[in-house]
C-alpha cells in the first residue's frame, strides 16, 4: 500500500454531536411537522371527527332522545369507532415511516449524519405519536365540545378515559407499524402489511377466539388470557371497564375478569397495552440497528 504525502494539512475541528435527547427531539419535530402537513393526517382527523359526531347523533336517536344525548351510550359507540379507525391510523403511519424514507433514499442520508439509529427510530416514533395525539384530540375533542355544548356531558370522565386509552392504543399500533416498517424494503409492502395486520386484529382475532372457544373448548380464564394478546380487545375491555366498572356486557369472560381480578384489572390492561407499545418498539430498534438502510 502506497502512502502519498498530504498537501497543506489544516486541522479542522468537527462540532461535538448532540446527545440522544437533542437529536431525538430534532427528528421528532421534523417528523411531526411532516405528518401534520400530510394528507393522511388531515383525512384521518376529518374522518374521525365526522364519524364521531355522526355516531353521537345515531346512538342518541337509537336511545329515544333527539340530538347529542346518552353520553355513556355514545362513549360505547365511540369505543367501536376508535377500535376501527385508530389502529388503522397507527399501523399505516408507522409502517410508512422507515420504509418510506428507505425507499426515498432519505434514510441513508439521515443515517450518514452524526445520529444513531436509536435516535432516528425514537425521533420518528415520538413525532408520529405527536401527530396521532393531535388527530385523536381533535377528533374526540370535537365530539366532546359539541356534546358538552348540548348539555349532555353527564360523564366527561369516560370520554377522558377513552381519549387516553385511544392514545395508548394508537401508540401500540404505531410501534407495531414501525416494526413492520423496519422489516419491509418498500413502503407499499409495509403499508399493505399494516392494513393486513389491522384486518387480522379487528376481525380475524375475534373470529379466531370464537372458533377457538368452541373447537378447543377453551376455559373461561384461557379465553380471557387470549384476549389480552390482542391490543384491541384490551382497549375495548379497559374502555368499558373504565366507563361502567363492569365487563358483563362482554359476556362470561368479562364477568370472570371482574370477579377474579377486580381492582387489578386496570393494572392488567395497562401492562398489556404497555407491552404492545414497548415490545414491538424494542424489536424494531434491534432489527433497525442490524439492517442496512438501503
Amino acid at each position, binding site marked *: 500500500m502506497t502512502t502519498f504525502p*498530504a498537501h497543506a494539512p489544516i*486541522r*479542522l475541528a468537527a462540532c461535538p*454531536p448532540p446527545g440522544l435527547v437533542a437529536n431525538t427531539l430534532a427528528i421528532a419535530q421534523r417528523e411531526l411537522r*411532516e405528518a401534520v402537513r400530510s394528507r393522511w393526517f388531515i383525512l384521518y382527523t376529518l374522518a374521525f371527527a365526522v364519524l364521531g359526531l355522526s355516531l353521537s347523533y345515531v346512538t342518541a336517536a337509537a336511545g329515544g332522545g333527539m340530538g347529542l344525548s346518552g353520553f355513556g351510550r355514545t362513549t360505547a359507540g365511540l369505543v367501536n369507532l376508535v377500535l376501527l379507525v385508530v389502529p388503522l391510523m397507527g399501523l399505516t403511519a408507522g409502517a410508512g415511516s422507515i420504509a418510506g424514507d428507505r425507499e426515498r433514499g432519505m434514510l441513508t442520508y439521515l443515517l450518514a449524519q*452524526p445520529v444513531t439509529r436509536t435516535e432516528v427510530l425514537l425521533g420518528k416514533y415520538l413525532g408520529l405519536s405527536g401527530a396521532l395525539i393531535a388527530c385523536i384530540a381533535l377528533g374526540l375533542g370535537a365530539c366532546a365540545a359539541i356534546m358538552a355544548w348540548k348539555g349532555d356531558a353527564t360523564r366527561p370522565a369516560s370520554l377522558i378515559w377513552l381519549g387516553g386509552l385511544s392514545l395508548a392504543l394508537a401508540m401500540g399500533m404505531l410501534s407495531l407499524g414501525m416494526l413492520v416498517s423496519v422489516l419491509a424494503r418498500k413502503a407499499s409492502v409495509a403499508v399493505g402489511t399494516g392494513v393486513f395486520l389491522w384486518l387480522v386484529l379487528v376481525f380475524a382475532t375475534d373470529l379466531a377466539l370464537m372458533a377457538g372457544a368452541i373447537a378447543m373448548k377453551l376455559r373461561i380464564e384461557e379465553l380471557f388470557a387470549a384476549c389480552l394478546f390482542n391490543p384491541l380487545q384490551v382497549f375495548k375491555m379497559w374502555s368499558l371497564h373504565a366507563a361502567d366498572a363492569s365487563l358483563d356486557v362482554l359476556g362470561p369472560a368479562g364477568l370472570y375478569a371482574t370477579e377474579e381480578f377486580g381492582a387489578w384489572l386496570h393494572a392488567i390492561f395497562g401492562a398489556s397495552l404497555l407491552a404492545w407499545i414497548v415490545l414491538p418498539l424494542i424489536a424494531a430498534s434491534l432489527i433497525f440497528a442490524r439492517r442496512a438502510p438501503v
Partner: protein
Amino acid sequence: MISIRHVTKRFGRTAAVNDVSLDIEPGDAVALWGTNGAGKTTLIRCVLGLFRFQGQIRVDDFDVARQGKLARARIGYVPQELGFYDDLGVAEAVALFARLKGVRSVYTPDILGRVGLTGHEHKRIRELSGGMKQRLALAIALLGDPPVLVLDEVTASLDACGREEFVSLLSGLARGGRSLLFASHRIEEVTALAQRVITLDKGKVTAEIPAREFIPHLGLQATLHLRIASGAREQAARLLREGGFDPQRNGIGLIVAVPTAQKAAPFRILSEGRIAVEDFELLAHTDSHTDSHAAEHTP
C-alpha cells in the same frame, strides 16, 4: 484521518468490498475509481457506518463500527442524489441538519451563498433542480466545517453543464485542508479533485496511483477527425507519421488516434508543416467506459 484496514463487506456470497486497506491523511484527496459494481459506493457506505463489515475503519481515530456517531461528526457527506424530504424548505433543511450536527450558530444566507444558492432559502426542496439539490447537499455537508468530505458519485445525476459547474464549485470549496474521499467514474472529476486514485474491481483494490499518472494509466485515447484539403493530405499524413502518429485516411481528411494528454500535438505538427486544418472533430473515450463527448470546432 481515515484508516481502512482489511475491510470486507459481503452481500450473501458476493464480496462487494474485498480486503481493502487504505490510508487517507489530512488534506489528502482520494478518488475511488471503477466500473458500476466495483465496490466504490459500498466502501463509502462502510466508511459512513451504514453497513456492517469485517475489518476496521477509523475516522479521526474514532472506530466507525463502535463510535459511529462521533466518526460521522467528522464527515460531511454528499450522496449521488439527494433523497430529501421534498416538503421541507431549503432554510428548514439547513436548520435541521445544523441541529443534528451540533452546529449552534447558522446564518443560512451565508451557508447557501457559499454554494451559489443565494435567494433560494424560501423555496421548497421539490422546487430545486438536480444541480441545486446537490449544491444544497454540499452546503449541508460543509456545516460545522468537518475535516473529512465524502462524496459518492455526486455528479452522476447532473447534466454536462451542471457537472462542470459542480466540480468547479467543489474544487474551490470542498478542499480547504479537508481530507476528501470520493467515488467517481468521470475522468474530469478525478483529475480536477484527486491527488491519488484507488482503482477498484470486483471489490478489490487493483491499483493506487497519483492522479497525474491516472490518464496514462488508463491508456486513454482520443480520436481526431481532421478535415484537410485533398492536395495536402498526403503530406499531412507523412508529417504525422514522422511525428509518431498513425493517421488513417477517410474521404475528407485524416483520422488520428492520440493520447488524451497530447490532443494538440497533431495540430502543432501540421501547423509547422504549413498545412491548414479546415475543420476537426474530437472524440474522447476510455478503454473501459463509454464516456464520450464530441466537440466540433472551426479554426
